[in-house]
């Protein structure tokens, strides 16, 4: 008896009982159900919600694997065991087994905790509420480990995931009803609850915090400095990384957000499978560029001198802004969330534009919140229904006017 059959038997056995949704979810997650609708005409499509979500996860896998390599690379680089990359994207210093093993050791627990806790909460709510398990957590569970620092303690992640799933999603009615992107809710919770673990120069490289503790205890070791580019720029220091390093992603940062090139590949997968909206991605990039150009213009016009606290970030060329921080990752994988984003085409342009625009603005004007893209997306999530409402109203008005002219 195969796994499919035994799952089916289990499902039938528990039908109508409390635990039924849990077995049903396991069954349909792994296999297409045996039974089909019995009456009426129906169309069978393979890309249901689960397939859609799986595609998004596939698009994120390159970022995850790169994130593992990068976690190891940054760690070994910081303690001086390997040299910095020297020969482009396929540098041998980067793609080493030891990097991957160390990174996997650090990153896989994040993935496991994220999925384990998140799905446990989902199953619990499904059983209590007596509805089917919703698959909404599949994507969130993958996003979460990619947007946190590699050294985040697992118990903090656990609390944040419970908070994000319950307060960010279940209280609104579960998958498809949430106002805010759950993954970003989780990150925002971590950011405000445990700021010392989510910002600064000690969290982005594995082992930096322990090293700092050892130093404080008087041990003779070299300190690890793992400042992100945004952190350095906010203090008017030079960023210290080559442009190509930033594009390839050999820089400290949250686990999966550093590699712009792999995020672009993910974006292409999402656009060609028609899962994410290219309008949102494009308009968000335009928004970021516009804001970047305005700041560059301010610097060029000489309205701000190099002594100002904003100088470092304002003078950063606009196209550099696109590659540093989580901007690219946020735009591609989180701004495009179909549930929390705008639904109308015109609305998507407005929604995306302001995400890019506000990200850069927050990033520059408030160095305490370096990850402007998180706050910008959450803010625009809140406004998305309003934008849609006015787009629809405007459309109705225009068509009414057209009707009037004809009648006269």
């Amino acid at each position: 008896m195969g796994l499919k059959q035994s799952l089916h038997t289990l499902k039938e056995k528990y039908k109508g009982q409390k635990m039924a949704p849990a077995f049903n979810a396991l069954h349909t997650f792994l296999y297409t159900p045996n039974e089909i609708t019995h009456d009426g005409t129906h169309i069978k499509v393979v890309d249901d919600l689960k397939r859609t979500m799986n595609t998004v996860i596939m698009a994120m896998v390159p970022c995850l694997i790169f994130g593992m390599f990068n976690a190891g690379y940054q760690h070994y680089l910081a303690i001086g065991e390997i040299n910095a990359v020297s020969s482009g994207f396929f540098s041998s210093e980067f793609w080493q087994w030891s990097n991957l093993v160390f990174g996997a050791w650090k990153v896989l627990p994040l993935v496991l905790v994220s999925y384990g806790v998140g799905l446990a909460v989902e199953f619990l709510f499904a059983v209590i509420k007596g509805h089917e398990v919703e698959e909404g957590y599949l994507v969130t569970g993958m996003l979460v480990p990619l947007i946190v620092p590699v050294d985040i303690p697992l118990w903090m992640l656990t609390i944040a995931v419970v908070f994000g799933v319950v307060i960010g999603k279940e209280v609104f009615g579960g998958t498809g009803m949430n106002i805010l992107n759950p993954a970003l809710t989780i990150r925002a919770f971590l950011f405000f609850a445990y700021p010392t673990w989510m910002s600064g120069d000690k969290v982005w490289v594995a082992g930096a915090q322990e090293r700092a503790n050892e130093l404080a205890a008087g041990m003779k070791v070299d300190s690890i400095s793992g400042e992100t580019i945004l952190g350095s720029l906010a203090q008017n220091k030079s960023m210290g990384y080559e442009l190509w390093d930033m594009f390839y992603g050999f820089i400290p940062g949250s686990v999966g957000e550093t590699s712009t090139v792999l995020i672009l590949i993910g974006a292409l997968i999402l656009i060609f499978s028609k899962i994410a909206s290219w309008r949102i991605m494009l308009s968000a990039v335009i928004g970021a560029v516009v804001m970047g150009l305005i700041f560059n213009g301010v610097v060029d016009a000489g309205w701000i001198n190099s002594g100002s606290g904003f100088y470092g970030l304002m003078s950063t060329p606009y196209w550099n802004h696109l590659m540093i921080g989580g901007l690219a990752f946020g735009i591609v994988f989180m701004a495009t969330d179909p549930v929390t984003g705008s639904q109308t085409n015109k609305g998507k342009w407005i929604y995306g534009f302001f995400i890019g625009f506000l990200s850069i603005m927050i990033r520059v004007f408030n160095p305490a919140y370096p990850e402007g893209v998180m706050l910008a997306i959450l803010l625009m999530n809140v406004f998305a229904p309003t934008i849609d409402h006015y787009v629809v109203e405007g459309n109705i008005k225009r068509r009414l006017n057209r009707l009037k002219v004809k009648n006269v």
Partner: protein
Amino acid sequence: MGLLSKKDTKLILDPLSDDNPITIQVLGICSALAITAQLKPSIVMAVSVIFVLGIGNVVISLMRNIIPSKIRIIVQLIVVATLVIIVDLILKAFAYELSKELSVFIGLIITNCIIMGRFEAFALGNGPWRSFLDGVGNALGYGVILIVVGFFRELLGSGTLFGFKVLGDSVEKTGLYAIGYENNGFMVLPPMALIVVGIIIWVQRSRNKALIEDH
């Protein structure tokens, strides 16, 4: 029949649960968010509101037949302002530190919707004894929520209760902190107070389905 008749007891007990000013009527939220980061200010605030609302309700009730209805809001404001100033001065005289901590929020009791709401809805139409009970009951209902929110916010946000380090010392890493526990900084911020109040409302409504409005 004891000291309180059944009807009178209801005046005190209803606002504590099924007719709570914060969780059911959703009044007086601003102060509930602003001063509940610690337990002590929450309790002082609760006591202040019990004083102002209890006495205020009696005063308004005594005057209810002579207040011209056109200027009743002004009269109510004068009564509540007088009482709030008394509370403010007492705090300044005997608990200066605390009064500094509560800053404008004692003064802002004047604008607490619960107080004007009870004046309007109850004291203007009922005798002084029943008005007193109603005032104390509603203020207690308000206070209970404040204290519950303050308890969780101080415990999880600062790791203390009334300033005592119940979870250990966060700087010297003793107690829970020795095994890596850290305070939740989000708890100290006002948005979290709103979420905690929301969770209380959630718990209350899932225990008593009659409270759920149907739209």
